């Protein structure tokens, strides 16, 4: 935590302003990425080659980062906001991954067996 306690009180005037044109360009980028995401879903090659999931993961990650960086101004705003949010994000990400992995290895077969009476 950077410390500013000794500094003269400063008002948080928010981030530096980006121009409206920039915001619109970013929106266009987001739309294009979404279109690409949907498009590759309909390309068989991505399904058969196993590249669909990684491709989708990367594309949505780019969208995610773009929105938080520019629309939520994390890129230009005070870095401490970034630390706070990324902290929560990473913690949540790790716990989601751990939970999914821990649960997955156990239940499928047995649940199936139970339901089907096999």
């Amino acid at each position: 935590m950077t410390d500013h306690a000794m500094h003269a009180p400063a008002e948080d005037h928010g981030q530096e302003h980006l121009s409206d044109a920039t915001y619109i360009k970013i929106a266009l980028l987001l739309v294009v990425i979404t279109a690409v995401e949907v498009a590759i879903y309909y390309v068989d090659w991505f399904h058969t080659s196993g590249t669909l999931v990684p491709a989708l993961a990367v594309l949505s990650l780019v969208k995610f980062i773009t929105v938080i960086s520019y629309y939520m101004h994390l890129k230009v705003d005070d870095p401490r906001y970034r630390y706070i949010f990324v902290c929560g994000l990473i913690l949540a990400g790790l716990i989601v991954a751990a939970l999914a992995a821990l649960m997955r290895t156990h239940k499928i077969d047995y649940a199936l067996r139970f339901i089907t009476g096999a």
Partner: protein
Amino acid sequence: MASIAHQPQIVPQPVTTTKPATGIWSWLTTIDHKRIGLMYGISAFFFLLLGGFEALLIRAQLAQPENDLISAQRYNELFTMHGTTMIFLALMPLTSGFFNYVMPLQIGARDVAFPRLNAFSLWVFIFGAIIINISWFFNEAPNQGWYGYAPLTGTAWSPGRNVDFWMIGIQVLGVASMAASFNFVVTIFNLRAPGMKMMRLPIFTWSTLIVSIMIIFAFPAITVALLLLSFDRYAGTGFYEVAAGGDPLLWQHLFWVFGHPEVYILILPAFGIISEIIPVFSRKPLFGYSVMVYATIAIAFLGFGVWAHHMFTVGLGPTANAVFAGATMLIGIPTGVKIFNWVGTMFRGSLRFTTAMLFAVGLVSQFVIGGLSGVMHAVVPVDAQQNDTYFIIAHFHYVLFGGTVFGLLAGIYFWGPKAFGKMFDERIGKWHFWLTFVGFNLTFFPMHFLGLAGMPRRYFTYAEDSGWGPWNAVVSFGALVLGFSFLVFLYNIYKMVRHGEPAGDDPWDAATLEWAISSPPPAYNFAVIPTVTHRDQLWWDKYGDEHGHAHVQNDDVPKTAEIQREANAAHPHVHLPNPSYFPLLAAAGLGTFALGMLFMNPAITIGLLHLPVLVIVGVALLIFSVYAWAFEPAG
């Protein structure tokens, strides 16, 4: 006794500018962190006594084998409510009381960052506590254990409303804890007095910060777990029902993702409290301040990665068990560092054994036992023998009683004079400590033996030939002693309030900012916001060079306490934000809504209560209050 001899007795200056309003209405609408802290403390103390009473009933039933004093059903309600009450209604709000009262004073703030949100937290807590406890009057107290493992909580196995009271009550309490924690974090980041750098924060404030951050990240998990349970019980989904494709293990994971950080949420405040007390009564700064801070952060961080050690016996598989065993053992390292640093603080110090110090040292000594048995439980195969036995009960009571309760009692003896302006009777205090100490060990140490002898938890009865009778009798006797010690404490509080000697501003010759102002502090806390130049600021003021051995009074530098006294004498016109009744109304709206939900369980209907009348009224009240609150001028 009241104050240290060389310390001139300071009579609090009369403050006439902002005379605190009195009367019940002023308490209901207050947004003063000190009053909110006191109300937290008092209500939590009530629940501590209630939870203790429930424990005594449990011990009465178990005092001898095959006892039939209490029915199985009632016993199951008692242990569920004992756990729930102690964790959510006694210890957490008590620590919240300390956070509220002490933390803003320690950082030199006038109040918390969002005073009305703070009041809202308090009232939501009260409503949540009421919701859980009115279950007794319906004869439907929660009976599924404080950890509410699915699928026992499902409608197939718990058709009554018992689980609903618990599920909805905890959800409401979660709102209170989260709201309070957001507030504390912002307060500590933003309302520090000039010069109060992060590494000058009093260690108790550090605890407040870390614990609040833990609450912020831990509670959403149980919120989701409870929401899924609500859907299972109310809407017929099957998140935890195997037959519907769900898995009860999901509950355990989500619950312990919250539940394990919760353990540290309960213990770290006590660590913070004694980290203030031990240096003051050793007249020596905290040994290894920065290491203590990093250790706390490390414990908090690791605390999120060890939840599955509560699940070593559910069959997660060898790899998961091994990984979580390693992570759990890792936590032992920063915890050990803390213990050693407290002992290091006492070494070469000048120790004075007030009651507060006795409880603090008691914590250091007794927590070690709980910590070491905790390491035993990290050894997965050993845990397979000890899990769900009295060995575990012994372990976590050494942590939560020998740790948290000792710490909180130490805190009450330490900051009580600040809050009430009067001193406790030290002689009775010492009786209180030793009775607690003996009763505590008599109650909980033999539980290790019972656990080794294979007595499982949550047994309402046990067979004569189990061989558990004698130690259970000892434990029950110990519980009586422990109960008696609380009577002594109550008497001591009564005596303090009625006949306590005036405390003066700084009865303990302490180092942090709260001791620079009168006891009790004025409504506005600091007549002028202090400027901080050192950690242990008041010691610097009083003795120079952080009470260097030269005893040189550094007269050139203005002293924080003097500045406050002079400013106070000049009748400062500190404008305080207005009291507001909207937090109370909003909390009432939330409470009404929750109560309405409780009676809407479609499986169990009584009269017209299943109609969403209360829900609609509650939501309307909530929305109205929130808008009124948002548009109410703050001051």
